[in-house]
């Protein structure tokens, strides 16, 4: 019988598939949950309040800090551990290796008992106390904020309300104009913006009333919908491909661990996030009220670095770059990176680019 090219390809693929499955079975028998560790860079607790903790990272490999204190502020949609996924894919380690004095706030895992917490509380209460604790710990009068995604919005609002305490404002993948997705021509970008705008206010309030929070599982479902083919193939084709190489498999599993660790979003803050910001776009029109006062982005007069991902499907680039039109500072810079939302932190390609980009900008403004 004569073998055709199709037969050969089929046989080779089948053989590869079986071999990869076999490797996967061996790897799963060997790898323990403790091996899939995330957020492991050494750090010391310096402040704790309710579920919120503030840590100071230890210098890396004896590299002394050459900058003032920088506070990393992640949002409530995911955990901060994304920025230190593993040793060779870590924004934290990239910055420590260059001499940045780093702190990080962890909002913990809010539950129903935190349903009343508002954005006001995260900005004017917890973040404020973290900034004060860092000033006391470091002896500095001002802190540089490095905000990420929703944490970037917290940082932006804080900087606008308390500019005297902020030396520099660095934002990454942060939405500012929540309706600017309309000018992004990429069809796969901005589903959350569209989805939220289609909800009625009482859909959101009833959802939050039912659960006390915006459940992390709901947000996970929405994120999964944004990449349907990847969602469908992740646990069959994707993981079998990852079986080829143990390092790749561990990276896959660390990402899974981070994704599974999605916290619930405190209820009242979720209403503000979805209604005031996503639906009504109040941050850019100056009508967002925090602690009873409107937030004025023109009061952001310190240097600003705005880092965004050109392929970000969750926060479309125009939503981030809109910041430049609204801040009061003349020292405004942008850094556009290839890749998607979390790729800024976890892709192998972005590692040096992000670390250098942030460090160089920061060094010039000490």
């Amino acid at each position: 019988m004569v073998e055709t090219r199709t037969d050969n390809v089929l046989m080779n693929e089948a053989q590869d598939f079986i071999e990869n499955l076999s490797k996967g079975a061996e790897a799963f028998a060997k790898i323990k949950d403790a091996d899939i560790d995330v957020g492991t860079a050494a750090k010391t607790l310096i402040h704790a309040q309710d579920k919120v903790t503030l840590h100071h990272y230890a210098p890396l490999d004896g590299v002394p800090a050459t900058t003032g204190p920088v506070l990393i502020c992640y949002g409530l949609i995911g955990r901060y551990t994304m920025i230190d996924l593993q040793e060779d894919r870590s924004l934290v380690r990239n910055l420590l290796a260059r001499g940045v004095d780093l702190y990080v706030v962890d909002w913990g895992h809010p539950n129903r008992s935190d349903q009343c917490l508002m954005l006001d509380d995260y900005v004017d209460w917890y973040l404020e106390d973290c900034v004060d604790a860092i000033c006391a710990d470091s002896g500095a009068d001002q802190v540089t904020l490095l905000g990420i995604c929703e944490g970037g919005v917290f940082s932006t609002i804080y900087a606008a309300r308390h500019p005297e305490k902020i030396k520099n404002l660095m934002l990454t993948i942060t939405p500012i104009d929540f309706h600017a997705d309309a000018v992004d021509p990429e069809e796969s970008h901005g589903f959350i913006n569209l989805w939220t705008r289609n909800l009625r206010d009482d859909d959101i309030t009833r959802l939050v009333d039912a659960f006390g929070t915006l459940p992390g599982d709901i947000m996970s479902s929405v994120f999964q919908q944004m990449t349907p083919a990847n969602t469908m193939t992740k646990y069959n084709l994707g993981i079998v491909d990852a079986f080829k190489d143990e390092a790749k498999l561990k990276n896959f599993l660390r990402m899974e661990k981070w994704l599974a660790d999605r916290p619930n979003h405190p209820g009242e803050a979720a209403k503000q996030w979805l209604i005031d910001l996503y639906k009504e776009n109040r941050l850019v029109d100056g009508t967002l009220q925090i602690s009873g006062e409107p937030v004025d982005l023109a009061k952001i007069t310190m240097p600003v670095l705005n880092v965004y991902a050109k392929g970000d499907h969750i926060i479309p680039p125009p939503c981030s770059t809109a910041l430049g039109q609204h801040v009061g500072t003349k020292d405004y810079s942008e850094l556009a990176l290839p890749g998607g939302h979390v790729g800024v932190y976890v892709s192998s390609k972005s590692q040096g680019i992000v670390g250098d980009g942030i460090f160089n900008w920061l060094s010039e403004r000490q």
Partner: protein
Amino acid sequence: MTRRSTSTPKHCEHVMTGTKNPMDKAFAAMMEQQSHLLRSYSEYWENAVEAGQSDTLNPFDAFQKSMADFTAAMPKPSWLQEDGILSETLEKMMNPARMMQAGSADLSRTLQKLVEAPELSDIGTLERQGLKGLKEWLALKEAGAAYQAVIAKAWSRAFETFSGEVSKTPDIWQDGPRSVTNKWFATLNDELIRTQRTQGFLDAHRALLRSSVEYRLAERNMMEAWCEARSMPTRTEVDDLHKTVYALRKELRTLKKEIAAAKDKAPAKTSGKRAAKNG
């Protein structure tokens, strides 16, 4: 509803008649089977919406069963036969009927998990709450079926596109199953993303979310009536406590800040005395 023809699509006919290799025939047969599956899937959910329920036996369930039998009968290496959990997981991974649910049933599955609660064995005087819960449950099932219908149509459109494209490039089969699979998922991905931006999808999604929330709240009302009758704390009472504790904590923080600020402003008594003596 309008029944579609169940004959072989033209794209598939082209692939089938234009091939000589036995593997190509197998692929063509698979295409035909997929086409029938997608039509039955789409029709099932459309019927479910019209009937206001979705629990009847249907061709899709029959297909799922045949796929489950197929994957169970697949030959397995010895190491796999020894591990029941791994074997079961792999069977699920390889079952194409299960893959179809990804991207469509994920949300409803999540919502179902969120609304699940212990069943009530005796609703006693709670008939009214029970009926309200039943009404919301039916609304949830209807919204779920409407949502599935939108997704099923998107799958059918994607397959039409895919079969049209592969009929123009019959050599794609020569590159092996992975190449074909990648093309299929790329086509499906584009179609699902396009569908997500339609008002039909957004409204179906919103209705599903809302109905699941209303069902959960109706269920909570039932539970609260039961708890109150037995002097047990209700969800509403516990939420009230959370609100009280939140207000107290906030007040405490404000007072602490005011005291600290007042101390900072007040002249230091000891240093003042020293200053007076020194002066």
